[in-house]
């Protein structure tokens, strides 16, 4: 059971209720900024005639989770991508890795952490929709099961094809996201990345990283083999050289030393 959000840009009037509710729900300081920051996890941006919300897309296979060296980010089965500030070491790898530029860093704090939308995970656990979806007065932000939202999004496009661009953003972008978007204008005009791969971005590194154990084992065996061979060659060469030397210059017996035959006779 995976939850998600359906954002319908054509319905958004930019009232900002979602941002206000987010501030209140997550106890974030005012004001509501024009761009998302570590303290403004969602905001409504004006793009031409369209109002578009910015928030974490909650990827199905998140890049931030993949790159975090300490496991501070994790994708939950309920849908949200959660962040654990206690684990975070502040490397900001997630900030750089996110294809949507979502995680933001607290540049103004002596002990900073990352801030981003957590899809009101505590509300979901309590059986409530996200705060933004609850207060949206136009239904532009809709909460529901992702599968149902995908069906709803396709139904809306089919019902009013002239109203929407024939694309559900987030269905396949970066391997799919829990947040889906519908728009009446091309998505690049909304400031969204449109050239994302259709497969999860972590696959890119996974393909290489998954071979590491094989390469280490095989490579190790190979290198050891080469080492063994060269060492044996050297050993053999030294033995043969010594034998040749002994043959050419037989060593005189030291004084007083008895031959092996004499020793046995006594």
């Amino acid at each position, binding site marked *: *059971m995976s*939850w998600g959000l359906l954002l319908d840009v054509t319905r958004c*009037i*930019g*009232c*900002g*209720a979602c*941002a*206000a*509710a987010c*501030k*209140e*729900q997550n106890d974030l300081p*005012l*004001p*509501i900024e024009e761009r998302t920051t570590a303290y403004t996890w969602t905001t409504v941006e004006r793009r031409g005639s369209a109002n578009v919300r910015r928030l974490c897309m909650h990827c199905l296979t998140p890049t931030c989770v993949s790159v975090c060296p300490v496991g501070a980010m994790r994708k939950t089965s*309920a849908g949200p991508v959660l962040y654990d500030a206690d684990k975070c070491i502040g490397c900001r790898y997630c900030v750089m890795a996110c294809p949507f530029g979502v995680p933001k860093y607290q540049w103004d704090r002596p002990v900073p952490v990352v801030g981003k939308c957590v899809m009101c995970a505590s*509300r*979901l*656990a*309590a*059986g*409530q*929709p*996200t*705060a933004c*979806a*609850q*207060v*949206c*007065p*136009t*239904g532009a932000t*809709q*909460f*529901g*099961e992702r599968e*149902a939202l995908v069906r709803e999004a396709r139904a809306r496009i089919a019902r009013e094809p002239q109203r929407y661009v024939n694309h559900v953003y987030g269905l396949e972008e970066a391997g799919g996201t829990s947040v889906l978007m519908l728009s009446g204008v091309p998505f690049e005009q909304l400031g969204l990345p449109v050239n994302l791969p259709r497969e999860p971005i972590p696959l890119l590194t996974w393909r290489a990283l998954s071979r590491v154990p094989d390469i280490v084992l095989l490579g190790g065996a190979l290198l050891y083999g080469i080492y063994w061979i060269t060492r044996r060659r050297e050993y053999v060469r030294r033995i043969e050289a010594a034998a040749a030397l002994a043959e050419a210059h037989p060593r005189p017996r030291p004084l007083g030393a008895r031959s092996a035959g004499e020793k046995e006779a006594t």
Partner: protein
Amino acid sequence: MRVPRPGPGIGGLGWLAGLVLLGASSPTPAREATQSPTLKLPADAIFERTVGADSAVVFRHGPHVALAANRCTACHPRYFRILVPTRALRHREMNAGRACGACHDGRQAFGVRDPGACASCHVGRSAMAGRAAAPGGEGAPAAPRGPKPLVFPQGEASPGPVTFRHDTHSGGKAGCVACHPRPFAVKRSASPPGTAMHEAEGCGRCHDGTGAFDLAAEDACARCHAQEEAAR
């Protein structure tokens, strides 16, 4: 794991926010036009714990949202919480520029301390019922309904108990603020007023022979302390 149900927009789901001030309840057509007809706004918030018999405050989102050009952030969450309903507000905080007073400061909108503005917010439940009944009609502004008559018991040096009636002390053009909160706090004091009431810090403020009859006049006592004599 418990599963959340998909939410019904905002519905009546406990985020009625805000309160007070129905003064802007008659939006002009131009203002009305700025509001999308499809907005699902919380139901009217009714605040009944007010002084007076039928002086409940009814807050309507519609006109306020239209006046704010559909920007919920004009009030939320700075002045009112958005996820939980505002249940109580005090004039003290509004007078200090918080909550309703952030806009109703006498410049952006009528002030929460404006003389004569009381009835703009304190319309009472019955007025709202009438408004709803009249199809499309905003109705006439409801007359302010004062609190019940106050009965002051007879003091030691008093010729008799006094019954104070709000409806004969409307304050003239000044309205409620002619007497509230000075010299009389809105919240009634528990102790009997005593003879200090005759001074300038009490009824004497108006009853000095210029604005109203002089308390020092010979026949003045019976005009307030009339109850005892009538009983006899």
